[in-house]
């Protein structure tokens, strides 16, 4: 709430300084730093890639899309970014999430700071991301690009929905396998839930999840909670060891109905704490995986 009020003030103060219609593009922040992957991806999609992000290597591994330009500076840790380096690249805006709010006083010595909430409170990810994207558009003077990103995301989900409707799938269990005993099952508050409900796929995991949209469970508990034998399973990459094959060594995995009938798909990495770009990527890869599965069945 405070974030919104702050943003409103900030946006209105911008408007006071120079009415939006007359403003030159240079009056808006040009050198933006993002200490959050989702906001960094959103910046790239809006045509203003960040000048620096925290944990660049991590972004390349976990988000993959959209690609960052090589010139992006790696600022180190997300929770303790290198302040000397941050100051030296002279940003004019720093984007953070509420998890970094305690270092805000340090960041504010360098540039104005805006904090945006997505995964730090429960709720529908896409709704929150749309709101954030619009706000970013206002702050950066790129309302048109923001709207274009929102439209293209909804378009991607609409396209996916039309494909999926033909098949009449039962429910899906989306899980990240950590080892043979433990999985994270995604549900309420997750990007996956948000996208799946919009492309007409039903999530089989209806139990409680945490604020970040998953539940850390042992395989037996998941099995006990979901005894619907029609369920499809979605494995999220990266998988441990040799992927699904290694799971087959264990009887409890092997005897699961979905394993026996090979009713599972694997998805390439999609930023699990992602915003609209990740939602768009997810609907693409999800439908692709389902289509190729249906062709084989």
């Amino acid at each position, binding site marked *: 709430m405070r974030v919104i009020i702050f943003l409103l003030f900030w946006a209105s103060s911008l408007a006071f300084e120079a009415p939006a219609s007359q403003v030159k593009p240079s009056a808006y922040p040009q050198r933006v730093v993002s200490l959050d992957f989702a906001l960094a991806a959103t910046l790239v999609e809006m045509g203003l890639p960040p000048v620096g992000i925290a944990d660049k290597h991590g972004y390349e591994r976990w988000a993959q899309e959209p690609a960052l330009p090589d010139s992006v500076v790696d600022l180190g840790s997300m929770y303790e970014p290198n302040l000397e380096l941050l100051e030296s690249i002279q940003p004019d805006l720093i984007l953070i999430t509420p998890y970094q709010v305690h270092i805000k006083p340090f960041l504010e010595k360098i540039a104005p700071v805006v904090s945006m909430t997505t995964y730090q409170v429960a709720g529908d990810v896409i709704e929150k991301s749309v709101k954030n994207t619009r706000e970013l558009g206002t702050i950066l003077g790129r309302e048109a690009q923001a709207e274009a990103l929102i439209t293209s995301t909804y378009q991607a989900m609409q396209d996916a929905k039309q494909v999926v409707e033909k098949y009449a799938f039962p429910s899906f269990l989306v899980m990240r396998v950590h080892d043979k005993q433990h999985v994270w099952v995604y549900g309420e508050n997750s990007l996956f839930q948000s996208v799946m409900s919009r492309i007409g796929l039903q999530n089989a995991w209806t139990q409680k999840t945490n604020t970040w949209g998953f539940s850390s469970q*042992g395989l*037996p508990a998941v*099995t006990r909670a979901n005894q619907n034998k029609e369920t499809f399973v979605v494995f999220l990459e990266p998988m441990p060891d040799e992927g699904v094959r290694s799971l087959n060594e264990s009887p409890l995995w092997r005897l699961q109905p979905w394993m026996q009938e090979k009713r599972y798909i694997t998805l390439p990495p999609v930023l699990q704490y992602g915003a609209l770009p990740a939602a768009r990527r997810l609907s693409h890869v999800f439908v692709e995986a389902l289509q190729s599965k249906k062709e084989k069945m």
Partner: protein
Amino acid sequence: MQACPNLIQSVSVKTIISFFGLILFTFGLCYLSFARTLPSLSPIQSMWSPDTAQIPQLLIHYSWLPRQFVALMAGAGLALAGVILQQVLRNPLAAPSTLGFSSGAMMALTLATIHAPWMLSFGREWVAMAGALGTGLIILALTKKRGFSPLTVILVGMFMTLYCSAVTAVLNVMDQKELWSVFLWGGGSLVQHDWQTFKQMSLPFLLSVVAAIVFVRPLSLIGLSDETAGSAGLNVNRTRMIAFLIAIFVTASIVSHVGVITFIGLAAPALLRIAGIHRFGQRLILAPIVGALLLWFVDLVVQNFGTFSGYAAPTGAVTGLFGAPIMIWLLLRTKSMFQPSVVDHGYVFRTQKPMLVAWVFFAILVLLVVIGLFLGKSQTGWVWGAQALEWRSPRVIAAWMAGALLGASGVIMQRMLRNPMASPELLGVNAGASIGMAIAILSGLGVSIVIQLGFAAVGAFGAMMFVITISRRSNYSPEKVILVGVALTSFVEGITLLMSASGDSRTLLLMSWLTGSTFRIDMTLALLSSGAAIVLLGAAFACTRMQQAVELGPAFIRNAGLNESKARLILLLLVAGMSATATIVVGPLSFVSLMAPHIARMLGVIRVHHQLLVSALIGGLLLVFGDWAGRTLFYPWQVTAPLFTCLVGGPMLIWFLMRREQHAR
């Protein structure tokens, strides 16, 4: 059986009744969890030959049943290792978890996950086992020259724990997102999906039990003293080595499969001692039984009630969390259960010019402060200049002050407890601060650094008051204080393991503080901490005579015209204050307080005020150097000063220690 009447005589009726009460309750819980898995009553054969089309029967056979067996066996094995280690090390704090086996396994897993994932395809348990065994064997190799003397083993074991945890923490900071699977292992989960774990654990467990029974006589002799054991015709060194090998072997085989489960190895033997069972032979048989029941009980509680808001808590973390209050409760009920610790510094060299040593270190410290302030890195390479003073000066000041406090408090603590492995973090003040910080982060109240540090301060002083209140009954004798500290530390470990195994994103936030950091310090805080440091260090120098008297014993305290318990209270308050201030400034990682006094001692600085001074200087320079190196070596990433000090200082100290042994021979 001659032992039986003895046993019954030595145990009170109340103890026996509560023991059987607990067993009954445990069986009740067991039935409850069985009924939850198998809702309708199916044929009992489903336990061993399930109908593969029936999911509930599959779950009973492949998950529920092996889990109960694994819990029992893991508890028994850890307690066996604990009772053997406590016997040969003659120290009630010795346990598989305090000697670094679990930390070694965790480090190996973390390293393999990041740098050699192919190793994991052979099975995670083998990597973990290699880590645990490797750590144990390194401890043995390093202590061989001293004939595996108990104190050296404990000291080196503590170093290994700290060191492995530090390496793991660095890797966590750099590659956090890859490591959730390691965190899940670290949480100590007993979830099973087949009989593999049980089968793989059984053989090592049975072998260890047999070995322990075979060696029961030498082992009970060695618990008395080296002289007694030696005069009974025992090869002391060989017996110790065999005992360690048994303990390492059984711990490694359990930890590698089920992850970090603290407290059981410590608590099961301690419970027996409290129950009045003093004969080693009896404890050796009973400890595994008690340990098995304890872990099984905790696991059943977890199975039945351990799922909250969609998160199944891992048993190991819960054990640490609930073990702590039980341990403290037991402590309050017992009068005394420990023999006084042994003075064994083993430093023979004594310098004639302690002040010269102090001046040399002061010069190095000044040099390092200048380097820390002016030499840094940028995108293009090394840069010398004052351009980043605004960022660097609070950090350098904070590192210096905290280092000085830690170095000096280590001296007081080691002298007061007459134990070279004592460090202020045993007081539980750091743990209290960490609990405060965890509450600040989890409750969402910690929205600014000042509020977060405020919570940490409240936690630190709360823990301090708690420890002081508890130890008042025993005239502030330090032995009990330490156990409270250990209990609080295990509580903190429980919290972090619980958080990290749930995939809580805020874990990384808490971890970045737990690994100690000068990041949050601004100029105001730096100056405040300097003020506090000057006052506390002044107080420490003002009461050197008292420290000396307390170290020498009650008779000397009275001779010096002091009140015994008052003197101890003053020193405890002093150490707690120093430790709390340092923790608030640079986090709870206080390796420096263990290391600095030893370096001073090694250089032959013996007298209290000299050692305080030199140790404070060394502590300061270690952290200032650590801060600078941590900032520049992994640029743009920053490894925190305490962490870096531990990383580099650990092997250095071990090397020093070993070299000194060679000279001594």
